[in-house]
């Protein structure tokens, strides 16, 4: 039972190759094998959304993806948002700071990654579309209103930056 197997995953542009137990989730792979602690783990059964990452550009719950299933994929985590050279926050992160889109911050990585996908698909979402997109992420601090405001602000700034 549980023979370790090889998985090759590109995370934030870097290729990793590891032998892992089949039951290891992508979330635990990121945290324990790669020491990328930005992806948080809450419920571990696909309800809370804090472990949201992008797999091949699409949001996914890293707790509901096996590291072996992610073999051959490109994964983007919250660590990729901040500009490595300048240390500057991503416009989505900065908007969450400016609009108080977080309090304790535990759920924030998941919200940021969900927002990243949303604004790539839909640069000018309505409040209803923002609420719909964020439906799979839970926050126990903010009451969500400031998160919706953060996403709205991020969308506006990104549109201005890209001249849209």
């Amino acid at each position, binding site marked *: *039972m*549980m*023979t370790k*197997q090889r998985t090759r995953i590109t995370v934030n542009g870097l290729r990793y190759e590891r032998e892992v*137990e*089949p*039951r290891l*989730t992508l979330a635990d792979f990121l945290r324990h094998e790669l020491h990328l602690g930005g992806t948080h783990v809450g*419920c*571990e*059964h*696909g309800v809370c*959304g804090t472990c*949201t990452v992008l*797999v091949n550009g*699409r*949001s*996914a*719950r890293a*707790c*509901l*993806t*096996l590291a*072996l*299933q992610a*073999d051959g994929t490109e994964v983007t985590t919250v660590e990729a948002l901040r500009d490595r050279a300048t240390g500057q926050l991503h416009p989505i992160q900065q908007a969450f700071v400016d609009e108080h889109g977080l309090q304790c911050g535990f759920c924030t990585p998941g919200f940021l990654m*969900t927002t990243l*996908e949303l604004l790539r698909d839909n640069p000018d979402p309505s409040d209803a579309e923002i609420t*719909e*997109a964020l*439906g*799979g992420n839970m926050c126990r601090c903010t009451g969500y209103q400031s998160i919706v405001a953060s996403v709205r602000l991020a969308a506006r700034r990104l549109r201005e930056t890209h001249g849209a």
Partner: protein
Amino acid sequence: MKSAPFDYYAPQTLEAAVALLSRFDREGVDAKILAGGQSLLPMLAMRVARPQVLIDLGKVSGLDYIRQERDTIAIGAMTSKRSAEDSSLVRDRQPLFHAATKLIGHQQIRNRGSVGGSFAHADPASEYAAVAVAQDMQIKVFGPDGERLIPASEFFVSYMTTSMAGTEVLTEVRMPVLPTGSGWAIQEFARRKGDFALAGVAVTLRRANGLCADVRISAFGVSATAVRFPAAEAMLRGQAPSPELFARAAAAARESLDEPMNDIHASADYRRQLVKVLTGRCLAEAASRAA
């Protein structure tokens, strides 16, 4: 909330997957197919399921497609719900299935969850199951004896139970395109958006000379499998649509619900009431869309 240990196989062909299933079946090893994993992995995490082996279909090519074959839309088992949601073919030609897709979980779930996985999982609250039994969908499976088609009415057997053999793999779901002019509606009631529905109803109907025709009503989340309501359908057939008629049909749907589920989420009576209310609303919505 970690899964119990299991062994993992990622075959590259359907034949290899079936060979593995057959071998483990002979050896008495509990092996399960892993598709998108959005239902199975939570069950593993909670240890509701503890298979000894997972056989991942993720490396099998040729199971990710949506195509039209005459009056049928065929969707490969490993097609993501996101792909079904984004498909203009599904949206335009089978809008009920499209609307059902959007009710499933959240974006993160639909990005990874497969269409075929939902059918094989056979959750009683599955929106797809209700669409399948009302739209005469067919499910294609592949096993040691080759391929066969199972009508949806014979596919769903009970809670999380289908008529597939343990050595068969679901490969495709097939649905008739919705005839031009058909009205459709699907509505559900859940505590939060994306949660399992406490009850839901799907309806299609047409108008022929102003009268209701080809009425199909089904419900999900209320019994061991999705259920159809032939008595309520018969009351509507050939009749002029009206709020009074829809109210009587909705009451008939409620009455024909035989022992609905009764659990901590909702009592049987509450589910009956939801079915009545949702049936009435779906009939009105579907009729407003019917040409």
